[in-house]
């Protein structure tokens, strides 16, 4: 019974980690059709932001709170540079963006290796987040509760921005129909840059948060990337709602499957489920009705 409650929670927790990693991807992929393989390296940049901040600030708790917004800016800035230097040339060639950003990811990994060294570095977990809370007879790590809360905040923030701000309205207009939005006077170029900034910034935030539970090394981003893409594919292009549902579903599935089998078989299981699922809904969980013929 304890284990069951624990696993239920694990599913939610894994889901929220996936969601944090995938949220930014869902924005950039859905909005612009850019398959950003360097997203994982943006997450890694967030991890190292947390590390550097902690080295400078000292106090683990304060540095975590400072690192979250800094991580957003670092990730966002990297995204802006990538978008303006490379991706801008590649719209309408989504598969090429995949390969170019893979190259960017390789370079960023090697930069991290040369700057911070290949071994993992340690980001200390702040005192208030150490240990666990007893919940329904099972011990739940506080770090995971924090990440779940952060995921909820991030989703709420993105939803609010998209729904209620003028910038959000422009983003939705471009997603719906790029040409029509341009005709109506929306500068799709600026909207693209803005979206990419937010999406990459979310990767940075995710990176900062993930230092609480995982390692910080040059290859950190890789471990989240493929799963994050699966979430986006299963959830449907550009749908925040889809990403949320898909992340939680995949997380729970993985956690449950793992209990009865091994962790590595669970990974294979996830893949099979997604292929079968795409048979039923080729466009993902929630399809976006666009007015474009694609």
């Amino acid at each position: 019974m304890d284990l069951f409650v624990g696993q239920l929670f694990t599913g939610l927790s894994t889901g929220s980690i996936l969601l944090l990693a995938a949220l930014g991807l869902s924005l950039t992929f859905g909005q612009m059709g850019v398959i950003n393989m360097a997203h994982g390296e943006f997450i890694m940049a967030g991890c190292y932001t947390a590390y550097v901040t902690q080295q400078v600030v000292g106090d683990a708790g304060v540095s975590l709170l400072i690192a979250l917004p800094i991580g957003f800016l670092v990730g966002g800035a990297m995204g802006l540079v990538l978008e303006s230097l490379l991706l801008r040339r590649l719209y309408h060639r989504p598969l090429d963006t995949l390969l170019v950003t893979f190259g960017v990811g390789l370079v960023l990994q090697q930069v991290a290796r040369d700057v911070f060294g290949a071994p993992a570095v340690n980001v200390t977990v702040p005192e208030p987040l150490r240990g666990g809370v007893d919940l329904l007879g099972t011990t739940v790590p506080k770090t995971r509760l924090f990440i779940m809360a952060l995921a909820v905040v991030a989703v709420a923030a993105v939803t609010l921005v998209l729904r209620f701000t003028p910038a959000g309205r422009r983003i939705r207009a471009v997603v719906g129909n790029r040409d029509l939005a341009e005709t109506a006077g929306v500068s799709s170029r600026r909207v693209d840059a803005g979206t990419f900034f937010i999406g990459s910034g979310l990767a940075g935030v995710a990176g900062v948060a993930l230092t609480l539970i995982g390692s910080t090394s040059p290859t950190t981003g890789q471990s989240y990337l493929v799963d994050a893409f699966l979430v986006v594919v299963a959830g449907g292009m550009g749908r925040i709602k889809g990403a949320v549902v898909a992340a939680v579903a995949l997380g729970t599935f993985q956690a449950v499957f793992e209990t009865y089998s091994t962790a590595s078989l669970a990974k294979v299981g996830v893949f099979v489920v997604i292929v079968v699922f795409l048979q039923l809904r080729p466009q993902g969980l929630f399809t976006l009705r666009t007015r474009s013929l694609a």
Partner: protein
Amino acid sequence: MKFFSTRAGTWTGFAAAALVLFGLAPLVLSGFRLGLLAQFLCYAIVAVGIGLAWGRGGMLTLGQGVFFGMGAYLMAMHLKMADAEFRGGPGAVPDFMELAGIRELPGYWVPFTSPVFTIAAILLLPTGFAVLLGFAVFKRRVKGAYFAILSQALAGAFAILLIGQQTLGGFNGLSRFRYFFGFNLADPVNQQMLYFIAAGALLVVMAVALQLRRSRYGELLVAVRDGEERVRFLGYDAANIKVVAYAAAALFASIAGAIFVPVVGIISPASIGIIPSIMFILGVAIGGRASLAGPVIGALAVAWAQTALSEQFPSAWTYAQGLLFIAVIALLPGGIASVGALARRLPSKPTAVEAAA
């Protein structure tokens, strides 16, 4: 460039390639370098398939490691069985199983005692799997980025699955092959024979790819790449067209894997996962995805550069790899093959290549 697209030019090209591969290379290269070239030729065979599926068909196959791995493991199983039989008589288990404490030969290994079965499996199994997967995916019109990500996840899942299979050597994979269809692999003469097989296979695969490109089917494939909906409106089933190219690419990769095993002497999950699968793409992109010779030259050049550069500058090689991806894809989508055209200020059919993206 124009010359090579004429019939006479094609034959000249093939003849020149054959002359270099069969005549020149064995003369000037040491046994070790020739073995290395044989390994690179295997990558080139994979590249021909990717050129067909991606360059002509617009399907970015990020999971070729799966088919490469299938061919390689199927061949490796036969070589291990032949070896076990030679040492311990019929029914003996391969050496790595003995060490892992497996006494009973798993049932699915038994048929691989037969060379005929093995070769049939290498040709049919990956192709059949590609056809099934292709139908499942393309019929539902999963395409573009979705297809790329799915095929990539497939490579990841396949590698994980293999790591868990102790009866297939797990993480270590299969290695230590002594005999290849009765020939002793330690003999330099036989190693040279393997090189000739690799070179021959490459030329055959290129010839098949050429025929596919020049046939009516090749026209349709490009049409699907450039405007899938329009082909559909004309009454063709685009899924069928794509499946053929996808299956051909899978077959080529499988053949390459099967030759790779005796040449290199090991196959393990490390050679077939997500990263190796993307690396197959690099050579194709650099050489020129849409041309026939481009992917081959690109794959050979990348493999050679990796060996040469990584010896002196291991960290620089990673940078070089990344920058090559960025530079070639962003600035020169036609690859090396388009350089000549650019130099002569001829339009290098940018629309076709960009639409392939």
